[in-house]
């Protein structure tokens, strides 16, 4: 039995709880590992159950109001204290789902450091701690003989990170692509409906694709952060400030119309030239025949050029359900290694 705590309980956390509830038995029979969620924390409180929440309890936890884990009696606590949580439920895996802050990486950074120092494996969907302190976190994990996995942080709907990690003999020369679902949706709307940026953004917000505060997306921070994580995975280690960013909000409808007239489409793309260390997020005109021109709506795509060829990944960029599945993939991978070790 593998004991899991979930820290941060927004849309991804809730989707994760539901998926575990619905797939727990299938995972047991397919992989022989029993996933037991023993603790959940949000910003206001915690729910702890040391013998694990039942499937029904997990479904009901996913229905509590925002910041309402402390309403889940009789397992609720009106405070958040990771030390208390760990002492009570002794987790094997810490799932970190708090929101990203690129200023200091908190609260995710402290949470992950806490987990690693308690020799607990970490799965994170929170990018900021990795972006700001990748090397240090990996070193601590290694020192404490635990894993830190983060497949959901870049193109969560695909095994991109795992694949890039597995390119051990190839040299990655260039990474380019569309790495942010919100901005790609906005651009698709501008092209399809010929509406201006503000209106497209509003639509994205109304449809729940963009956040109420979309600045991380439209200023390119989210896409840049993903590029930084990819650079770390291939050992190139660029910093967030090394990525030159052009905000998407500069785009005007007339730019789109002109591009269409001339046979182009406009995309918001990331680029990393590994040799030159050149990294940027930029508004780019690409020919209509380019593969990236077909990537619309909330789809994302990445092309990785290595010294042996090119790999193209296409998949859903964001979404609570997709991200939660990637988190669960990481959890299962760790669970298998733990159970394998125990056997």
């Amino acid at each position, binding site marked *: 039995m593998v004991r899991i705590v979930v820290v941060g309980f927004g849309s991804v956390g809730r989707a994760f709880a539901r998926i575990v*509830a*619905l*797939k727990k*038995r*299938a995972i047991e029979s397919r992989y022989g590992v029993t996933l037991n969620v023993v603790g959940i924390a949000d910003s206001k409180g915690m729910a702890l159950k040391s013998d694990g929440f039942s*499937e*029904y309890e997990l*479904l*009901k936890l996913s*229905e*509590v*109001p*925002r910041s*309402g884990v402390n*309403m889940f009696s009789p397992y609720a606590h009106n405070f958040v204290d990771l030390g208390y949580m760990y002492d009570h439920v002794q987790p094997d895996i810490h799932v970190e789902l708090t929101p990203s802050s690129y200023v200091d990486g908190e609260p995710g950074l402290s949470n992950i450091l806490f987990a690693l120092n308690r020799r607990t494996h970490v799965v994170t969907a929170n990018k900021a701690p990795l972006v700001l302190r990748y090397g240090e976190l990996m070193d601590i994990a290694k020192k404490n003989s635990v894993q830190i996995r983060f497949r959901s942080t870049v193109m969560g709907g695909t095994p991109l990170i795992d694949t890039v990690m597995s390119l051990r003999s190839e040299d990655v020369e260039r990474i380019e692509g569309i790495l942010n679902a919100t901005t790609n949706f906005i651009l698709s709307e501008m092209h399809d409906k010929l509406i201006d940026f503000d209106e497209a953004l*509003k*639509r994205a*917000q*109304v*449809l729940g694709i963009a956040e*109420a505060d979309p600045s991380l997306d439209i200023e390119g921070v989210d896409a840049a952060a993903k590029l930084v994580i990819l650079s770390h995975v291939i050992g190139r280690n660029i910093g967030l400030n090394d990525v030159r960013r052009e905000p998407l909000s500069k785009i005007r409808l007339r730019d789109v119309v002109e591009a269409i007239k001339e046979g182009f489409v406009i995309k918001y793309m990331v680029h990393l030239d590994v040799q030159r260390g050149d990294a940027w997020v930029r508004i780019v005109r690409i020919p209509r025949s380019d593969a990236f021109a077909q990537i619309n*709506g*909330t789809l994302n795509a990445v092309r990785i050029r290595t010294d042996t060829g090119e790999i193209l990944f296409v998949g859903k960029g964001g*979404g609570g*359900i997709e991200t939660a599945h990637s988190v669960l993939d990481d959890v299962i991978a760790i669970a298998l290694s733990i159970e394998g070790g125990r056997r």
Partner: protein
Amino acid sequence: MLRSGKDYIEVAEKVRDVFLDRGFRPIIVVSASKGVTDLLIQVAKGHRGALDEVERRYMDIALEIGSAKLIRRVEEELKKLRRITKSIEEADAALVDYIVSYGERISKIITVQALENMNIHAFELDACSVIITNDVHGDAVIDYPATAVALEKVYSVIKDRNYVPVIEGFIGRTPNGIVTTLGRGGSDYTATAIAALLKLDKVFLVTDVEGVMTTDPDLVPTAKLVRYMSYVEALEASMYGTKGINPKAFEPLEKIFSSKVLIGSWRLFGTTISRDIPESLRGPKVIMIKDTVDYSYIAIVGEGVSEAKFVRDVLDIVISRGIEIKGLQSHIHRPSIVLYVDKEQGVDILKILHKALFEKG
């Protein structure tokens, strides 16, 4: 019809008494509270007052059911709805669907809490995660293969557990994740699609009346309950405007699996609709009248009514009572005949025919 907190509590009690206590394992499909869908359409057109009314209705219901968790959940959903409507001037079809979907969503949250208050293990099943449709906003069609995959995953978990899933009717989503709605009466369509895809035995459509009536009881007080109908009869009747039957709802039952449909109220599910009916039950089921500008038409629906013998019987009645008709119509393969009559005499003729066809002893 869900109007007040009391109605939701009644639903929960009836689910327990009528289904759970008798060993049924229901999946509950909910509609929006009465009138809310129309109000939300107004909201999408920019009428802010309509949103106040939606808020008032749902908050009243939440307060009546009384759970701190429920009140906060409903408040959260209403807050999101208010934010959405604040930021748009005029909604296109996709946004209308998204706004309208809140009616069912909040109703689902309330229903789950009402069931939970009775110690029933209910949980929210998101229509947007299992009902996959095409992108025709306002009148979307369910993609059966895609929906089957999503549904079976959930069903495999709940089928041997005492969990009661509650899902929004009328709502779906495109493969790209955009919310759609299934058109008027879409909740019935959701229910029959789920039943057909999961090969469930029965679909209970809960309405205000005890079943399908032989005719409009407001026009003919002696109207009777129709006990049994076939799908084709129900479909035909719905095309002539019979209340309580949504033509789309029969498609999954025809194409995929023939669950029985029971229409009625909590007191009595008076009408059973199945794929086939025995030979002895062939014959007229429903008679109804519709006015056009120049004349009225009276449609008689039932398997076998377009056969010569039945047509002759009807004509005998018409002639023996000295009724003048302007025309008679029947189509091959359709279980109906239509009589065109003078508008002034329409209701009287309806009464005569109803008496002759349905009130024999």
